[in-house]
């Protein structure tokens, strides 16, 4: 049965609507269950009982035939497919506006979860925001990181909540009679003014005495909990691709490495139901140089973050039996902290994107293949120096030196990401057919030397290839199409410096040939 199925499917490699630009996964569904995720369970299960890696990790399942990620409830192509003006990049996900502080902000509950103290508030327009503060010892640290990273991830294509830097004073707040404080031991007590003032007393203030905060707008729809990086939601018919095989979730590793988002775990994701489920990334307080100390208080990023899992047992054993001599080179990395205190601890010299690790293993990250990473690196490469500087500016740091340092660091990290991942596959890209010519570009830093190619006729029903000529070598990145009348053509391209092939499929239409598929050897 399965064999017949495969044959039937393989009988048609490309469908008439390939390559699809949208995965229509917003079909109406019944309200799904609310999921509560235990951070401890997530840590332990992913560390000690992680799903075993497949013998041969499959290619991402949701990529289209060009290897791109179609728009969906998970991802919307933005900077990867079009130029985004700086205004749009810095606007980020924001459309609604910050909380209206002309009238009191009503605290409706204390924040639960996450590592930063905060409240949930409602403004005069009934908009609900989550407000978080920097600790007094670390002004701008987490609020700056949160807003900057949200803008980056939004431009990349993920769904993120709107976020605003806000400057407030204690008198801006009123406490709703139903607001409670969760005490250690599971007890709750009504929130009072004393609690509010204590929390604000411990929050960082700017020189004029105002308290700096970040306000994240509640996402539309009913919040139904986080998503996982493995499997699918059993009660969501739209969710058919196992999350570990979604290209944008595998490639998320590259983005997280670039932006040092070590806290990129399920607890910092969110699904919202509004007729269908939309999948969000939330809480970017522990990104860039901001992190937490061992007591989970906001602090400059722990040097371990990004370099070693929280429970990295192989490293631990090696350290144990070598009497501690086993080196952990990241321990010796020098950060310009506290020179640029507002941005915390982030650097670019020691950083190697392929070595970067999140807080604990992530099933999607573990399955990232070279073509997933290439897709992500192409998006990273689209952020120009100016774009990075403009987005970093949205962190509204007090120190321009700190802002400059962070932007320089991200530019250097971007270059490392792009250089490394463009070398893992054949980086020929931007294929276009103009008349009877196929043109392309080499995205890699390594000069190609020469291009080696061979044309084939491709049978879309049987997937068979028929060679149309012998291997050709040429220096130009423009190749004449063969003078044949085949419905599908395939060209296998290599370069002198990159032996891995990239196969490009062309389909004949009434207007000539069009690119229908790209397959990179990994």
């Amino acid at each position, binding site marked *: *049965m*399965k064999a017949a*199925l*495969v044959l*039937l*499917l*393989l*009988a*048609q*490699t490309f*469908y008439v*609507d*390939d390559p*699809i630009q949208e995965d*229509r*996964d917003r*079909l109406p569904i019944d309200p*799904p*269950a609310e*999921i*509560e*995720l*235990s*951070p*401890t*369970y997530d840590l*332990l*299960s992913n560390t000690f009982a992680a799903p075993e890696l497949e013998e041969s990790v*499959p*290619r991402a*399942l949701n990529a289209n*035939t060009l290897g791109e990620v179609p728009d969906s409830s998970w991802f919307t192509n933005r900077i990867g497919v079009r130029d985004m003006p700086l205004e749009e990049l810095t606007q980020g996900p924001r459309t609604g506006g910050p909380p209206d502080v002309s009238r009191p902000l009503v605290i409706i509950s204390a924040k*639960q979860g996450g590592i930063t103290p905060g409240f949930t508030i409602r403004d005069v327009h009934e908009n609900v925001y989550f407000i978080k503060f920097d600790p007094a010892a670390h002004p701008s640290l987490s609020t700056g990181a949160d807003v900057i990273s949200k803008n980056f991830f939004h431009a990349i294509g993920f769904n993120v909540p709107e976020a605003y830097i806000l400057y407030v004073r204690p008198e801006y707040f009123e406490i709703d009679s139903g607001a409670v404080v*969760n005490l*250690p*031991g*599971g*007890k709750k007590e009504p929130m009072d003014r004393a609690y509010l003032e204590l929390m604000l007393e411990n929050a960082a203030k700017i020189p004029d005495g105002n308290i700096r905060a970040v306000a994240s707008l509640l996402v539309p729809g009913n919040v139904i909990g986080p998503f996982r990086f493995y499997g699918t*939601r*059993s*009660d969501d*018919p739209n969710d*058919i691709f*196992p999350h570990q095989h979604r290209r944008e979730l595998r490639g998320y590793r590259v983005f997280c490495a670039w932006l040092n988002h070590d806290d990129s775990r399920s607890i910092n994701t969110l699904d919202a139901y509004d007729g269908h489920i939309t999948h969000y990334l939330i809480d970017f307080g522990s990104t860039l140089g901001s992190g937490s*100390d*061992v007591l989970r208080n906001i602090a400059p990023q722990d040097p371990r973050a990004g370099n070693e899992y929280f*429970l990295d047992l192989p490293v*631990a054993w090696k*350290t*144990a039996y070598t*009497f*501690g*001599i086993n*080196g952990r080179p990241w*321990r*010796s990395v020098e950060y310009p902290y506290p020179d640029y205190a507002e941005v915390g601890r982030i650097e670019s010299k020691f950083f190697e994107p392929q070595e970067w690790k999140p807080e604990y293993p992530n099933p999607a990250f573990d399955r990232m293949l070279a073509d997933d990473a290439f897709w992500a690196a192409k998006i990273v490469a689209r952020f120009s120096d100016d774009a990075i500087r403009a987005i970093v500016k949205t962190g509204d740091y007090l120190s321009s030196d700190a802002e400059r340092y962070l932007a320089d660091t991200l530019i250097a990290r971007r270059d490392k990401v792009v250089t490394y991942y463009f070398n893992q596959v054949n980086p020929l890209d931007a294929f276009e057919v103009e008349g009877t010519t196929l043109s392309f570009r080499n995205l890699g830093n390594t000069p190609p030397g020469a291009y080696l190619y061979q044309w084939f006729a491709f049978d879309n029903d049987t*997937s068979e290839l028929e060679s149309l000529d012998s291997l050709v070598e040429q220096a130009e990145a423009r190749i004449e199409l063969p003078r044949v009348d085949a419905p599908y053509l395939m060209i296998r391209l290599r370069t002198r410096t990159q032996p891995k092939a990239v*196969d490009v499929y062309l389909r004949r239409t009434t207007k000539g040939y069009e690119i229908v*598929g790209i*397959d990179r050897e990994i």
Partner: protein
Amino acid sequence: MKYLWLFLVAVSVDVPLQAQQSRHELLRKQRDDKRAHLVPYAPNSVEQQMVRFDKAETPTIADRNFFGLYPRVAWPARGSGAALGFRYWQPDFWGRVDVASAAFYSWRQYQHYDIQLGLIPHKERQIPQRSWRGDDVYELASTQPGFSRIPFYMTLRYRYLPEEDFYGLGPDSELDNRTTYLQEQGRLYLTTGYQITPHFVWIINGGFQKNEIRSGKASSLPSTEDVFDDTSASGLSKPPDYARWGTQVLLDHRDEPGNPHKGFMIALAYSRFDDRSEDAFSFNRYGLDARAFVPLGSPQRVLALRAGLLVDNADRNHTVPFFMQRSLGGSHTLRGFDSFRWRGEEIMLYQAEYRWEPLPFWDLDAFVEAGAVGGPVEDLSFSNLELDWGLGTRFKTYRDVVLRFEIAFSRETTRYYIRGSTSF
């Protein structure tokens, strides 16, 4: 095989066996098929429990209390063995006055009861340090800087210690002379202090101490009075009561006192013990405790060093009762020797530990120690240094060691330890 992913999409979902016209149709059919076989989300029981734990719907064991009564397991005295009991803690009970109390009974029948009243140092609403901290050689520097207000509190305490070991005084005491005695001790004292700088504190305390010495309760060992007399164990027949006062200064630059990776600490202590009953056992006590924690190229490798010196100086024609003299041996000092093995009016102690940290909450350690006691008969001398060494492992939080397993070797014995606190 090219387009392997198409194959995987096909086998990962049950696609109806008919040709699809478009990719969108194919995906739609997969979704329709899933819709027909939806399964409600159901976390497993472990996960459900952990959700409750994370949300603290179920208080952690450490937080469980009944109107301020916290069940606890503790080791209230050296040699007591594990004791069951409770601590009572009500911060700001009457206005700013705190109330703390403890009651413990060990499997070796040691008993400890205390009540503290006043402005007791504590962090936020956490339980304060146990009242018996600071009693022993290894806890000379127990008071930690960081209190937010000037402490001023009273402590009333009773202890019943039925099997205190005594091997004789000085460096020549014999292992074979092991005896036990029963000590009852009541204390009432006041404590206050001042934080001069964030790392420098000054503590003063004073009060009364009543002592009773009787026959030891260990059936397998002779009682002290069967082997020793008032000459070899002064105060044995007429244990004195004391009026005592003392002062302590502490300069603490450890990065985290309960789990240091760098820094140092120096404590100096002076205590005056005035015999209120016989006028024969008055003495002064001087103490020095210096510790340094040196990272060896990385915080994961720390060399921990300690030097301690304790001198009891009896008044003219007075002696220091044997049970008031401090001792070496046991889980914090000379770990290769039995608890109380070396007792004297003068004590010196040197400890070096190499601690390496495979994980932030897991330490391994190797240690060597040397210590000696002296007294009126034989002065403190390096020639009397006793040596031991050992290995261990610890599980800890950022702030404290939670569990310590150690094995220690000396010329006399091999000792194993399971403890809930750090060595030093």
